[in-house]
């Protein structure tokens, strides 16, 4: 890393994120103008987008090679009042909360109070969503049965396909015009709507070109106005100007242009709306490969400079924290990370190994930069050379959780099952935490987390939620009426079905609200087939449209059901009511019984068929309840199994559980066993986890924690490589590692100031350990640490 990259990185890592009111001001100004409100919604949104890009402050930071910030400065993070209008109280919380805070200036508060709030109150989509939801939904949401992803973040959850790197905005404009010219007003009742949409896309495409030209102009001014400027920097600025003149209007011609081209598109997506998982260049090594080859063939390839460009590119991601989240959304995803997850390796369209020299260069970049954003993963197929996996492990062993490791062959089968064709599946990968989708062609929307364990608690109370003191579920039977385990499980199934119906019904409404109120016209340009269909990304324009519900607490539910079956129905050592009574008392006075629940009960994660069967059964029930149900965009519902940070929140709304977990404590995360319950080592965990049918999901998340000594020597790394290969042979979807010992984490809790750089894997992303809430810190420490046997 040279001096300037070092400086830019330092600036990115050490700047306190700040809330920028700029975007809110511009969008409000735009909406306040009545003239603008006369346009059809998509056109209005496109004009609003243009208004922001025309008027926002732009900057080229000292020494930068890739230019463009979403806010007025690095880490200045905008708000989206049309989506979520923060109250003054929200702003205070954001400013003062101990973790994941955003500096809020007095000016921002004043403007919020005088302009933003009065205009948007009741009009933001968040307000509309909550007012559209029925009583049942509200009650379940408040009880913590599920979360709602779209209540303050926009649907996004999509990834750039290779066409994003192969086409300029002018090419897209041509396609838009062709699509308009093909509209059949005679026979198509939606033709006018389609024309509005396509015109809006045209406006947005032109807007991003003009935005780039502003940078070109700024670079030129900076180059020419300062006579004392270092001549090399002057040359660079002039070259930046030339690049911004060219991209994103045209197809990039070289490596540098390709990165800058993508970056403008990325900024467009995350400025238009606060899309979940920001945006993502997808298979970066593949997408950049043609530019590398071309420069190599022309004798222009400068490897050292290319590395510098990649590093500069990395810093741009880290400069854009996830937009400030509040309420339940902050609980479920409490991090600055915005989940851009770059894919490395995998297969090519023809099914051959996709590893190329850039794969290794990108891995070098990840190691050298060692920053939170972007996230990264390696896609491992049976055809992937061990060398790539070893290189990834070499980085993982340094202990910052990146890259995570995916089974590319499993992902392909998952996508095929969902109806994608083989080539599309090969060109895809994983994004966000672990989710699969057809890159460049699919809206795969995570709609919210679902608290499986909460539903068990509700079942044990005949539909009543003790925390909110409400009958929120159906009456599925008093505890003394269940004659056997099967009867009890049947009641649990009924409750699950009830709450999943509520969740999906709410989703349908919310999805349609987004389609109607806040189309994503810019994003629609780049995701196939929105142009062809003349339809917005948020309204089903993409070729594929999947909705996910993310199931949380597999380990906890499995162990809880095992305990109920064993003690209540098999051994009959206590009645279900007696058990519930003990749980309601949070084991007070029942210490020995809790000890027995924890130590003498079969637990998921030990390759014990008896215990693992419960996880399999719950999986099957959830799959049957969700998979294949239609969403409102012509696609289908799927399940996946991942938690981000929601296992902490979900745990906090549940009393003690039959697995011995005390009230309020976090649930298990992803498909990992309950923290500390897996005592038979990593092979047993992988065997248990592989008993779930990963291929019927859209992603599962497995965390493993290894003591650093295990990976110190190459021989240890090779064993871990074999572990991974074995797990993938069993169709495991994903695995990620924390390589850190408990003593280090404890020390970091005690002296956080000395451990500012300690990064750990949370669930699908990495984060600074000191930025995690206390409960999450404890949860990570309690995860079983596999030792150097």
């Amino acid at each position: 890393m040279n001096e300037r990259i070092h400086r830019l990185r330092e600036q990115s890592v050490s700047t306190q994120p700040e809330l920028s009111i700029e975007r809110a001001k511009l969008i409000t100004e735009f909406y306040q103008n009545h003239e603008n409100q006369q346009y059809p919604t998509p056109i209005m949104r496109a004009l609003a987008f243009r208004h922001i890009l025309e008027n926002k402050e732009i900057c080229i930071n000292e020494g930068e090679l890739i230019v463009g910030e979403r806010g007025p400065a690095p880490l200045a993070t905008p708000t989206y009042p049309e989506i979520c209008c923060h109250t003054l109280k929200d702003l205070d919380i954001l400013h003062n909360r101990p973790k994941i805070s955003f500096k809020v200036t007095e000016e921002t508060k004043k403007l919020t109070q005088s302009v933003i709030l009065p205009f948007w109150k009741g009009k933001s989509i968040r307000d509309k969503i909550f007012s559209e939801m029925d009583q049942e939904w509200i009650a379940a949401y408040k009880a913590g049965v599920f979360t709602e992803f779209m209540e303050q973040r926009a649907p996004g959850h999509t990834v750039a396909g290779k066409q994003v790197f192969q086409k300029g905005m002018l090419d897209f404009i041509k396609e838009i015009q062709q699509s308009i010219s093909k509209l059949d007003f005679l026979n198509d009742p939606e033709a006018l709507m389609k024309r509005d949409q396509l015109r809006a896309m045209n406006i947005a495409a032109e807007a991003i070109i003009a935005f780039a030209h502003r940078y070109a102009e700024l670079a030129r001014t900076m180059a020419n106005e300062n006579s004392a400027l270092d001549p090399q920097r002057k040359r660079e600025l002039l070259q930046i100007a030339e690049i911004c003149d060219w991209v994103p209007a045209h197809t990039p011609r070289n490596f540098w242009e390709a990165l800058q081209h993508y970056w403008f598109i990325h900024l467009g997506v995350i400025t238009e709306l606060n899309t979940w998982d920001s945006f993502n260049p997808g298979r970066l090594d593949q997408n950049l490969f043609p530019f590398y080859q071309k420069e190599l063939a022309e004798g222009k390839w400068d490897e050292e400079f290319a590395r510098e460009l990649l590093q500069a590119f990395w810093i741009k991601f880290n400069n854009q924290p996830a937009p400030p989240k509040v309420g339940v959304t902050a609980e479920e995803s409490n991090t600055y990370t915005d989940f851009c997850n770059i894919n490395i390796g995998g297969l090519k369209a023809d099914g051959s190994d996709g590893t190329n020299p850039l794969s290794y260069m990108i891995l070098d970049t990840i190691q050298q930069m060692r920053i939170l954003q972007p996230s990264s993963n390696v896609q491992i197929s049976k055809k992937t050379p061990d060398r790539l996996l070893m290189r990834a492990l070499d980085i993982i062993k340094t202990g910052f959780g990146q890259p995570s490791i995916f089974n590319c062959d499993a992902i392909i089968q998952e996508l095929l099952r969902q109806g994608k064709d083989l080539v599309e599946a090969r060109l895809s990968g994983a994004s966000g935490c672990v989710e699969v989708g057809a890159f460049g062609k699919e809206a795969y929307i995570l709609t919210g987390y679902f608290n499986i364990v909460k539903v068990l608690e509700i079942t044990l109370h005949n539909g009543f939620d003790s925390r909110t003191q409400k009958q929120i579920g159906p009456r599925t039977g008093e505890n003394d009426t269940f004659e056997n385990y099967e009867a009890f499980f049947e009641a649990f199934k009924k409750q699950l079905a009830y709450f999943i119906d509520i969740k999906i019904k709410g989703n349908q409404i919310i999805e349609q609200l987004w389609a109607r109120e806040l189309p994503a016209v810019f994003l629609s340009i780049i995701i196939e087939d929105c142009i062809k269909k003349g339809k917005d990304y948020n309204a089903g324009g993409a070729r594929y449209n999947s909705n996910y519900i993310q199931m949380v607490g597999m380990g906890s539910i499995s162990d809880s059901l095992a305990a109920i079956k064993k003690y209540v129905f098999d051994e009959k050592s206590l009645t279900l009511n007696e058990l519930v009574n003990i749980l309601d008392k949070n084991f007070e006075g029942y210490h020995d019984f809790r000890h027995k629940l924890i130590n003498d009960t079969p637990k998921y994660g030990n390759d014990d068929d008896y215990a693992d069967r419960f996880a399999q059964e719950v999986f099957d029930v959830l799959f049957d309840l969700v998979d294949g149900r239609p969403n409102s965009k012509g696609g289908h519902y799927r399940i996946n199994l991942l938690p981000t940070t929601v296992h902490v929140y979900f745990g906090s709304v549940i009393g003690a559980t039959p697995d011995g977990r005390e009230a309020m404590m976090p649930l298990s995360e992803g498909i990992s066993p309950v923290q500390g319950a897996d005592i038979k080592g990593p092979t047993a965990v992988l065997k248990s986890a592989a008993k779930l049918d990963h291929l019927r999901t859209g992603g599962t998340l497995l965390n493993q924690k290894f003591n650093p000594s295990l990976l110190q020597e190459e021989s240890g790394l090779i064993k871990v490589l074999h572990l991974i290969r074995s797990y993938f042979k069993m169709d495991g979807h994903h695995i990620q590692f924390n390589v850190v010992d408990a003593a280090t984490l404890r020390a970091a809790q005690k002296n956080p100031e000395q451990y500012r750089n300690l990064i750990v894997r949370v669930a699908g992303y990495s984060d600074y350990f000191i930025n995690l809430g206390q409960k999450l810190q404890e949860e990570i420490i309690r995860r079983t640490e596999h030792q150097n046997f």
Partner: protein
Amino acid sequence: MGNQLSGIVFDIKKFAIHDGPGIRTTIFLKGCPLSCWWCHNPESQQLEPQKYLTGPNFQEIIGKTMNVAEVMNEILKDRIFYDESDGGVTFSGGEPFMQPKYLAKLLDECKKQGLHTVVDTSGYVSWEILEPMLSNIDLFLYDLKLIDNESHKKYTGVDNHEILNNLIRLIENHQNVHIRIPIIPSITDSEANLVSIKNYLKQVHFTGDISLLSYNTFGIRKYKQLGCEYRLTNLKPPTSERMQEIRNFFLKTFPNCKIGG
């Protein structure tokens, strides 16, 4: 019928990565004729199951009776990992040859399943017991502690004649043998002992791998929990410099000498 044969197992460790090649499952059989002062598995010495205090009011029984079928069931659970990593099964102890029929049957079953087998042994076993099992053992992890018989007797409780003779026979029989030398400061690391070990190995034409295992204090706690006396109080593990020095001493003659399992 043979699969119903039972023995005493005191632990089964999966993902064992220092007990032979690849990813392995190590089956620890209870009972050992030696009682080395430095033994870090004192709970393995007595053949019968025994009590072990895990807290003021908690005790565990160490040692579980398992029949061959039950052990094989555990072993086969991780087959996919052995296949992927060229790993397999390791029988350790205690001294696995203390339960000869049981071990023979387990080895037989493993071979029927096509698994790679390792036996981790002190070598203190009669050749008549050992010999019939040879074809079912792919690799021996063989301990060499002290060459001087008096010292051997003092610190392990037994003579070393049989151990040294068995090693010669194994080498003559072209068995794969991996020598492991525990480096116990002031006991096995004297110059005289190290020179004797080296000369002895040269003399028997040993050419395989040697591992130097550093003394550790992990076992001390267990002595208390078992209610036994630990005789090496205050002994510190050798420094890594010292380990390296010993390795260098062996390296000239035995290029495959490394530190650690």
